[in-house]
């Protein structure tokens, strides 16, 4: 036997055989599955350890990968038929005015009077409230904007405003027109929205104190930190 070379047994080729059979494909699949399971366990373990040690905070900025993943998931969650819809409501001054009032009443608290999202709530939500004047929002189709308003976005601060009634849909389509105008809102429009935003008695009192102070009323005004907005 000395000096004799081993030969493959017929029907049991070495790994380097040029054409893997059915068993080879199964092996590759099992190997991939194992890699996946181990990978998920490792990442899950590290994530769990990090969460337990440091906690989770909405102060964090979502990573770019997370933004891309959630954006893609949101697109997938909007049915193609809705995504492709054009706004069926004609743009008229009345429609835009009604939408402006609607926006001031329902949306400005989070999205800001100018649509920038720069509000106390907007900066504190995870993910952040987007700047709706920016291309990321303006490039969405009418149908996508409508769907977001009507059905909300899961795992974000965006609620579903739709009630399933024709009136609600009409309001949402009107808001789509208004969102398109956000990048070109005039300072006058923004002031009008501010005047229409619902305010608490404390906020109204503070506004009055500020007005009196700026107009020169010599009575001692509100303290320096009048209100955290």
């Amino acid at each position: 036997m000395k000096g004799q070379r081993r030969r493959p047994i017929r029907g049991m080729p070495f790994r380097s055989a040029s054409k893997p059979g059915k068993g080879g494909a199964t092996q590759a699949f099992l190997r991939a599955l194992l890699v996946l399971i181990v990978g998920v366990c490792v990442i899950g373990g590290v994530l769990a350890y990090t969460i337990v040690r440091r906690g989770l905070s909405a102060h964090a900025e979502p990573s770019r990968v997370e933004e891309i993943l959630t954006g893609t998931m949101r697109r997938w969650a909007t049915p193609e038929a809705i995504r492709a819809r054009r706004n069926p409501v004609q743009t008229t001054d009345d429609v835009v005015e009604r939408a402006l009032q609607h926006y001031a009443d329902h949306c400005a608290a989070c999205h800001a009077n100018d649509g920038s999202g720069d509000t106390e709530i907007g900066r504190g939500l995870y993910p952040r409230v987007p700047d709706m004047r920016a291309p990321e929002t303006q490039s969405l189709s009418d149908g996508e904007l409508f769907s977001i308003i009507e059905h909300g976005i899961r795992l974000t601060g965006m609620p579903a405003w739709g009630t399933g009634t024709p009136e609600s849909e009409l309001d949402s389509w009107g808001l789509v027109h208004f969102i398109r105008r956000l990048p070109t809102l005039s300072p006058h429009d923004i002031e009008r929205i501010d005047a229409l935003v619902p305010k608490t008695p404390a906020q109204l009192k503070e506004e009055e104190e500020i007005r009196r102070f700026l107009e020169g009323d010599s009575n001692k005004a509100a303290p320096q930190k009048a209100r955290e907005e």
Partner: protein
Amino acid sequence: MTRRFAAVLVALGVLAFGSGSYLFAHDGHDHKVMGTVTMAMADHLVLKDTDGKDITIQVTKDTKIKAKQAMKVEEIKAGTRVVVTAVTEKDRTTAKEIQVGVSAAAAK
């Protein structure tokens, strides 16, 4: 197939660590500062608040000025009453909006 799984794992990893690295970033809160301007420069404003305390507020290109006439920060005269909507972060107060009122001399 293994490559595809590996790509998904990398994405999940980036997601996990990307979020973790920013866990405790923290922004300040808006508040209003009412006072009389003692000095106005292009990049900052010094004012005496209603309690008589001197406060320096930084001005940036994003600072909005709300006045009867369009003006720059450095054009605000000493003695003018202002209400500043500001945000304080790490001992630095930055103006988001400055509402310009009458001068102290014109005050009733």
